[in-house]
């Protein structure tokens, strides 16, 4: 499986006309005939796009997980769908960070409630009053 869009130097969401012009302008005769056969027929292009999308996803996942040189990832597919490692971080680290942030927020709330309960209560009361006021004013 090759990435015909990449080889024709167009985006995967190019319109039929853009694809037709790119194919027309292609200098490589073998690639031109194949692209003509695959991308210029609507039903074929739809199915090709489905697999293309999945392989792009796999390529991105591999890039993020450091698997661009896996033993099961070889040939045309690996050549065309391997991406450069991007800035996306480990999702697990990201989740842990979010979790610790949420925990810190909860701690702060608890501390405030313990030390100055009247501020917390006042805050809640203000919010309730505001909501009620908006509720009265809005209709």
């Amino acid at each position: 499986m090759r990435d015909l869009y990449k080889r024709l130097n167009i985006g995967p969401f190019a319109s039929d006309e853009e694809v037709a012009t790119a194919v027309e302008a292609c200098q490589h005769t073998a690639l031109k005939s194949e692209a003509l056969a695959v991308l210029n027929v609507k039903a074929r292009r739809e199915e090709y796009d489905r697999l293309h999308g999945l392989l792009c996803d796999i390529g991105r996942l591999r890039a993020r997980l450091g698997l661009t040189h896996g033993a099961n990832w070889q040939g045309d597919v690996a050549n065309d769908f391997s991406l450069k490692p991007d800035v996306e971080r480990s999702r697990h680290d990201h989740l842990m960070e979010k979790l610790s942030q949420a925990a810190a927020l909860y701690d702060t709330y608890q501390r405030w409630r313990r030390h100055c309960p009247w501020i917390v209560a006042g805050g809640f009361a203000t919010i309730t009053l505001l909501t009620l006021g908006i509720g009265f004013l809005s209709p």
Partner: protein
Amino acid sequence: MASTRFSPFELLLLKSRNQTDTAALLLLAWVAVSKGSLSPADRQRLGDMAGSLRHGHDHRLVLDVAEEQDLQAIQLAAEVLQRDRWGERALPFLSQAIELTVQDGNLAAASYHVLGFLADLLGVAPQRLKQLFLEVTGTQFACSEDPSRASYWQARERTWRQREQERQREQRDTHQQERASRQKRQAPPFGDKTLRALTILELDASATRSEIKRAYRRLAQAHHPDRFFSRGEGDVATASVRFQKIKKAYEYLMKDARFV
């Protein structure tokens, strides 16, 4: 504040009793979704697989996430699974994934690449994956499909055309058979004379034209008067009477249009 909000899959993972099992379930659902859409049979199989896992939440929530093909959720699941199921410990998971990919005996190109990704993720060598695939499905792990080549489409459309022609031929055949059987049913029952002729040829009412011919040849050879020449005039005379009877019965039946 938007970054501190948890996505649906992150929430599932946090609430799960066993994070690895939840992650495995999401990846299995992704394997099933990548084939195309999630069929009821796939849902059933995933439900069965979820029964053996200890995730402690409704597996349909995970299927919903997988159907959206949310790349971040899949990445998170891959990271969790990679931590806990590396090498040999990944094999049960991989065989479940293989079970999901194979549909009426053939492997789609998409599934081939997904399985390759999972094997690389979990540190399973290509050789081991091939062996496992052979054990689970009894077929070779290979993918010859390449939709980026014109030859793939030509071959594929040729098989489509052949299948279409076969279908039409079958339809025609059944149509003809129906017509023939209707004719047979409508035909009047055999008369006495026909039945007698058939009895002479040692056949019953279900005989076909070719059977009548074969029976006639056999009996004509057995009862031919020339065979009885050495036994004297009397035997030749009786044999010739019998032979005449057989011949007449045969000729009578051959004139009957009901024996097709």
